[in-house]
């Protein structure tokens, strides 16, 4: 823990741990599916990339570093895809964000699907 590279990697890993804990606290505390998705996907991607960079700084040999960069690229590609799939399925299933008064996209969606132009309102 004496060399500056080890210190930098420790700082990266502790920062990433802070981001992970903050995103999980957001998942526990937020009131809605969409806000929970916001907390659990974006902040956690940043935290995971920080932790993986901290691990890559301490790896011996180039193979481990290459694998870690593959994991980072994969997370960067797939985390937004997964969150988009979850949000899309929630909206198509009929869950509206909290506090929505009138949903303008619903008429477009239903016109594209069946021809009915009804506006969905949030259930009280």
């Amino acid at each position, binding site marked *: *823990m004496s060399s500056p590279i080890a210190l930098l990697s*420790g700082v990266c*890993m*502790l920062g*990433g*741990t*802070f981001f*992970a*804990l903050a*995103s*999980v*606290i957001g*998942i*526990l505390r937020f009131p809605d*599916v969409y806000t*929970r*998705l916001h907390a*659990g*996907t974006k902040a*956690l*991607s940043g*935290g*995971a990339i920080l*932790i*993986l960079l*901290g*691990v890559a700084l*301490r*790896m011996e*040999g180039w*193979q*481990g570093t290459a*694998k*870690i960069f*593959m*994991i980072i690229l*994969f*997370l960067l590609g*797939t*985390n937004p*895809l*997964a*969150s988009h*799939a*979850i949000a*899309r*399925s*929630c909206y*198509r*299933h009929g*869950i509206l964000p909290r506090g929505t008064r009138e949903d303008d996209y619903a008429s477009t969606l239903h016109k594209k699907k069946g021809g009915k132009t009804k506006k969905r309102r949030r259930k009280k």
Partner: protein
Amino acid sequence: MISLTLWGLLMAALLGFWRVVAGPTVPDRIVAADTVGTIFTTLLAVLALFFENPVFLDIALAFAVLSFADVLIMAKYFEHGELYK
């Protein structure tokens, strides 16, 4: 610092798993499962540093792929009620 990171990530995974168990609706559980999968991917990478064994990185890569496919299948099943439609 490595052990501190491990304990912090384990605490985060436990707290996220609480949302998986007690989530009021199904998409909450899906979101929390996605979060726990990402946390465990990074946890496996830190374990590779802790045990000084680079095999854990391969496991982390395979776990990331499986977690992504898992979340996609769950979201598609939740949207349609069946997988192929």
